[in-house]
């Protein structure tokens, strides 16, 4: 009973973006690292992600982006989380040019995991993100 419960993370893709292979690899990697991964899959909206994050009580929201929409959808996701009164860090993975990373960070994205990120780095980043999430009751 005293073991810390598994960390819950939500993984999704936003909008019109069908490239989910990378996200599936991440889902398996995180499962193998002991996370409980709530996999929402394709064609989500910022609103549907927020609803799921509330119901599932996740510590981290992971968004995969392969359609060049990250500068619009990334900040939109962070805003939707904040508007709902949630304090859940948002991590973006996928195809994000390096020069866009500072902009996303300024908009409150916790971290950006671009192409070639080592899976160990992914796990460490999600752990770091989860550590910023407010804790459990009791």
């Amino acid at each position, binding site marked *: 009973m005293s073991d810390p419960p598994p960390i819950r993370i939500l993984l999704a893709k936003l909008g019109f973006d069908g490239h989910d292979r990378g996200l599936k690899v991440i889902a398996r990697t995180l499962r193998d690292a002991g996370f409980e991964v709530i996999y*929402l899959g394709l064609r989500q909206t910022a609103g549907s992600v927020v609803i799921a994050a509330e119901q599932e009580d996740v510590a981290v929201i992971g968004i995969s982006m392969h359609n060049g929409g990250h500068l619009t959808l990334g900040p939109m996701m962070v805003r939707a989380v904040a508007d709902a009164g949630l304090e859940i860090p948002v991590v973006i993975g996928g195809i994000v040019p390096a020069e866009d990373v500072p902009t996303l960070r300024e908009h409150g994205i916790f971290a950006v995991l671009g192409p070639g990120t080592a899976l160990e780095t992914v796990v460490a980043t999600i752990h770091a993100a989860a550590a910023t999430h407010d804790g459990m009751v009791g």
Partner: protein
Amino acid sequence: MSRDDALDALLTDARHGSRRALGRLLSVAERGGDAASALDRRMLDAPPPLWTVGIVGAPGVGKSTLTARLVAAAADGPTGPVPRVAVIAVDPSSPLTGGAILGDRIRMQGVGSRPEVFVRSMAHRGDDGGLARAVPIAIRVLGSVGVATVIVETVGVGQIELEIIHVADTVIAAMSPGWGDAIQAAKAGLLEVADLFAVNKADRPGVADAVRDLEQMLDAGLARGSGDGRAWRPPVLPTVATDGTGIDGLWSAAEAHREWLVATGGLQRVRDERIRHEIGRRAKDLLAGRIDARTAELDLATARQTPGQWAALVAADVCAHADAPGTSAA
């Protein structure tokens, strides 16, 4: 804020419709330990959900899609701030890492975002009974905040399917045509616990055979009595979850089962049995650690005894020290 105050605040918020608070409470239930015990004590005087429905079936028969359709059927009706219907979708945890991929929401995209619906994915977290240990408390929490109907969806075979009867008033088994031998294999388990059968993917060949096979097995004496002689014969209903065919009929039949339970006094009986089952299970949990510890201490060289004789010794020792530390209320 103290833990008790925090729990009370979350319960108040959840009863006013906060999804976030309800999500938090379910995490408390899942985590177990003292906080979950404190939460559960608050459930003693709270109403249970009006109805708990279990949906079981092997992977790939369309269970999640079927569940999504039934949720939509259950969600129609007057709506307050609290969701009318909640889904607990249980998936297995990895026995090696404790991690899990919970993918049932993929099939619930349409209904999962409706304000009348609350969906929670649960990993079974290594529970040896198959169903996530937190499910009974989670159902009580959902009922206490005003959720009318709770639908529990479980994946898998054998134990998991059988455990569902200890949380659900009405159990729906999902199957698909072409199971053939698999139906045979399931005879001893699934056919005895289900109150209704949905033969899903009924747009595929073989549905008539599957329905007939099931009907024959049910007629072979599996219908259960109600205590006063009015037996419930599980109906077999073809469905196509992907386009909604047969869903209304399935839901109506499930409602008829609930009415039968109420009319025959069976609802109270299954709920009493359920509490006894949970008590027994948790009592075994409390003793299990001490049995393991005592077993590890045994010096097997001191006597030539069978494993059964050793086990009797261990059980006697543990029972003789039943008030030992480490058994505080969980």
